[in-house]
């Protein structure tokens, strides 16, 4: 057993165990924390496969962004009364059956030989296009692009791919994020009722006063 495989076994076991805990915890806050652990383990797995940039994005976006969003919503919605309730939905037996079936199928298709031939040369994962000044006789004195391999250039290579070949989906992804932002605002914003809107000014003043009273009561 190579050291890398040992690391994989440990990290993978933690990832699977904490993912099971995510779906079995009663309290969503606990689920969220185990989800964080899963994300971090998966990031380690990415780095082991030479995907340093994706690993970093995984930590930044998932662990940094999405987790905070989840915890924020869990806190916003008061979950204190939830633990008394039933955890499982009515068709949990069917759910387990479907999940196990999918698991068996997914593992069954993992067989050596069915996938595309393995490429022993991994240098393309870290090779970048570099602009160079040509000195050739053919057309001297112009810039051309050449693929060069550099160690630890994975981020550069991914960035290069994103901004050249993948420019179209990349721009569409930016539209996607814009829509997500609009949507979160449109759906999440609290609509004032008709009377509230008419008396919005007064309404806000009243709220400020009540808050003041509460503060005074607290400090007293």
């Amino acid at each position: 057993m190579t050291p890398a495989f040992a690391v994989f076994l440990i990290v993978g076991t933690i990832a699977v165990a904490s993912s099971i805990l995510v779906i079995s915890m009663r309290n969503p806050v606990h689920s969220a924390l185990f989800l964080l652990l899963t994300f971090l383990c998966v990031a380690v797995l990415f780095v082991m496969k030479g995907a340093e940039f994706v690993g970093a994005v995984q930590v930044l976006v998932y662990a940094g962004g999405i987790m905070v969003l989840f915890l924020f919503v869990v806190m916003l919605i008061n979950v204190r009364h939830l633990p008394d309730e039933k955890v499982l939905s009515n068709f949990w037996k069917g759910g387990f059956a479907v999940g196990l079936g999918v698991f068996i199928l997914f593992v069954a298709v993992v067989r050596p030989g069915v996938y595309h031939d393995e490429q022993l040369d991994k240098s393309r994962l870290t090779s970048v296009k570099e602009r160079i000044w040509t000195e050739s006789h053919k057309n001297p004195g112009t810039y051309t692009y050449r693929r060069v391999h550099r160690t630890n250039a994975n981020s550069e290579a991914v960035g290069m791919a994103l901004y050249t070949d993948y420019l179209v989906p990349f721009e569409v992804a930016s539209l996607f994020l814009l829509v997500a932002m609009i949507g979160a605002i449109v759906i999440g914003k609290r609509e004032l009722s008709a009377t509230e809107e008419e008396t919005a000014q007064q309404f806000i003043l009243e709220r400020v006063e009540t808050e003041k009273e509460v503060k005074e009561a607290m400090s007293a």
Partner: protein
Amino acid sequence: MLETAPSTDAYLMLSGTLFAVGLIGVVIRRNMITVLMAIELMLNAVNINLVAFSHRLGSLEGQVFTIFVITVAAGEAAVGLAIIIQLYRLKSTINVDEARMLNG
């Protein structure tokens, strides 16, 4: 570490497990927030697959696609949580099967 990384098959097994766990979570849990977390697990399983294949094939396509998947996951989480908040405001519950106005 790159040279001795575990085989693609091991990664596929792991991702299959995570995907199945996520799918089970989506079906069996009533709490909407947990359901959303289970969906994130499924997307992560896909990412593991893509990265493993990308390494195996020596092509960047899988890694770049992973970036898109992560972007989509972030956007979906934002909108999903907004819908949950709105549902909570209207009904004071975030359980999936208590959404019964629509007889399905």
